[in-house]
């Protein structure tokens, strides 16, 4: 008996009971739709997270000033406890560290012609751009020479460039930052949103020493706001963090029991945790979806058993005119698999629509992969095989005489 004929017979049987077939499929439709939507939302989220990881740069440790105590008063954050010498020390003494860069930050108004824009001004060294893997798309980046000579040049982030210059090329023009004229030497690549949700392109970079001297108010021009360190590789991240901690403890004379005046933060780690929790969420949703698929499968098994009982006579006729056990088995298996495959396809469509609606309404990124569709399709087929086997076996095992006499 050819396979095409088997499919034709099973489709006819399903068409005979349209409403029942549809209700039976519903369990699979909902289950598969849930799987597809869940995978779309889950992989959308992890795509965004991995984009953000890439936008920060990999294997980065951030050192920021901690709390200080002077005369019994504790201050945090704003204190300036790190210096350019710390940067030099970390570069030369921590063996797991490949690069270190100091930065200072300030906010201020930038003016070009009759336009102005409030933004973050960061004093940076060439190492910082290397650590963050962030280059200039137009013009050039900041060089060591710019830093050494404290030249009044600046790099614009995409957002700043657009708000001050529109579509015109800013390179070579003069902007005023806190009333000091700076020459624009380049525009940075677009970075997009940071994991914290801020616009990373809404910024201006100037050479570190220029910022220390002209833009930031501090006791010493040597002070830096934060320190960015790149470990040699991912495996050495924790080791690098340890080395930095012990070196800075020593340099800042932090003895046992005293609170350190700096904090280290491993950014990739924070994101890895975020990724982990999004994975855990996906897994949870997946578990819920699989439960609904199992329930749907049991529904299919139930209806197939009813169908076998109802069609006992038909089975008897088929056996009497020469159907083998295998022909009957295949017929009912095909029917169950057809149910789940059609249900699966409808579920995939519903899930894709659902995911699109979710991403439109909640502006949540979703990603429907060919892979997830393929998996869902074959999985629904597998459910048909698994839950269809017992009823089909029962049909094939009927005694032809009893089946023919069944009323």
């Amino acid at each position: 008996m050819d396979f095409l004929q088997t499919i034709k017979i099973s489709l006819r049987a399903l068409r005979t009971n349209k409403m029942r077939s549809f209700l039976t499929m519903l369990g699979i439709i909902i289950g598969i739709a849930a799987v597809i939507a869940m995978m779309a939302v889950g992989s959308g989220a992890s795509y965004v997270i991995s984009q953000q990881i890439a936008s920060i740069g990999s294997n980065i440790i951030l050192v920021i000033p901690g709390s200080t105590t002077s005369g019994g008063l504790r201050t945090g954050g704003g204190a300036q406890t790190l210096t350019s010498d710390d940067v030099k020390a970390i570069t030369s003494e921590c063996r797991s560290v490949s690069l270190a860069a100091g930065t200072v930050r300030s906010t201020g108004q930038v003016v070009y012609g009759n336009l102005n824009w409030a933004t973050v001004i960061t004093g940076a060294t060439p190492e910082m751009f290397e650590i963050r893997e962030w280059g200039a798309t137009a013009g050039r980046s900041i060089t060591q020479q710019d830093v050494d000579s404290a030249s009044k040049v600046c790099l614009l982030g995409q957002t700043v460039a657009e708000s001050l210059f529109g579509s015109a090329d800013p390179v070579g023009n003069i902007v005023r930052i806190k009333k000091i004229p700076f020459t624009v030497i380049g525009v940075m690549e677009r970075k997009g949103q940071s994991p914290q949700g801020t616009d990373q392109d809404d910024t201006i970079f100037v050479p570190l020493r220029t910022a220390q001297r002209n833009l930031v108010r501090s006791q010493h021009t040597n002070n830096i706001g934060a320190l960015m360190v790149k470990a040699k590789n991912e495996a050495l991240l924790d080791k690098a963090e340890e080395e930095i901690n012990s070196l800075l403890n020593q340099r800042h004379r932090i003895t046992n029991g005293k609170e350190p005046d700096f904090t280290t933060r491993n950014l990739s780690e924070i994101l890895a945790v975020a990724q982990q929790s999004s994975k855990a969420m996906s897994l949870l949703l997946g578990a819920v979806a699989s439960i609904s698929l199992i329930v749907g499968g049991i529904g299919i098994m139930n209806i197939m058993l009813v169908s076998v009982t109802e069609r006992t006579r038909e089975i008897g006729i088929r056996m009497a005119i020469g159907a083998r056990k295998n022909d009957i088995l295949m017929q009912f298996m095909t029917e169950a698999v057809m149910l789940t495959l059609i249900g699966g396809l409808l579920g995939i469509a519903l899930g894709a629509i659902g995911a699109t609606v979710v991403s439109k309404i909640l502006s949540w990124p979703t990603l429907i992969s060919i892979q997830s569709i393929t998996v869902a399709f074959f999985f629904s087929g597998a459910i048909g095989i698994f839950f269809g086997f017992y009823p089909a076996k029962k049909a094939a095992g009927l005694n032809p005489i009893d089946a023919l006499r069944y009323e």
Partner: protein
Amino acid sequence: MSAVISITDIRRLFIMGEQQFEALKGVSFTVNKGEFVAIMGASGSGKSTCMNIIGCLDPPTSGRYLLDGLDVGRMDGNQLADIRNKKLGFVFQGFNLLARTPAVENVELPLVYAGIGSKERRIIAMAALEQVGLAGKEFNHSSQLSGGQQQRVAIARALVNKPSLLLADEPTGNLDSATTEEIMNLFTALNQSGITIVMVTHEHDVAAFAGRQLTFKDGHIISDSQTGPTDRKD
């Protein structure tokens, strides 16, 4: 060999829990090619059990059954299915057509299991329907056909694989007398064209259409009589 059915000392024992019941207590007979045999008897006489054994639907407990010279008793389920498909044609009391299925597709069904391609199937099935006088009704569903017409479809289905033996189990049980006559005339015509027929019935006037009557009682054959002209060609 001209014997289509050769049955020697067939017994059939049913065991239901503690109870045992022997439906056939050593039956032997031979049916030759071209015969039209009616099997008669009251209910419980063993005629239906015998029919099931002849139809390869039920194995005998002991004894020997040769169908067209093949020892059916030694065959497994798949071989029996193939025998039913190629050597036997069944006509039942309740017609046993597939509901919501056109007549022609019902007739095609044995060809489907014989593995014949769809185009060829259609041609053979159409010819079989014409043979039983149903040309023009090929695409009617069974619910759109009268009882006599449904039985004709069933007969066409039984004949479509050119079987060695046509088995009919109370073929007129559900039909009125006029239709009974029609169907029996069709059987007679088929028999005259050379088809071997074995039919179970409990009505004497139906049995009278057959050339030979076997009467069962309590698991034995109590009479074997020739009433009409038979086409023995040995």
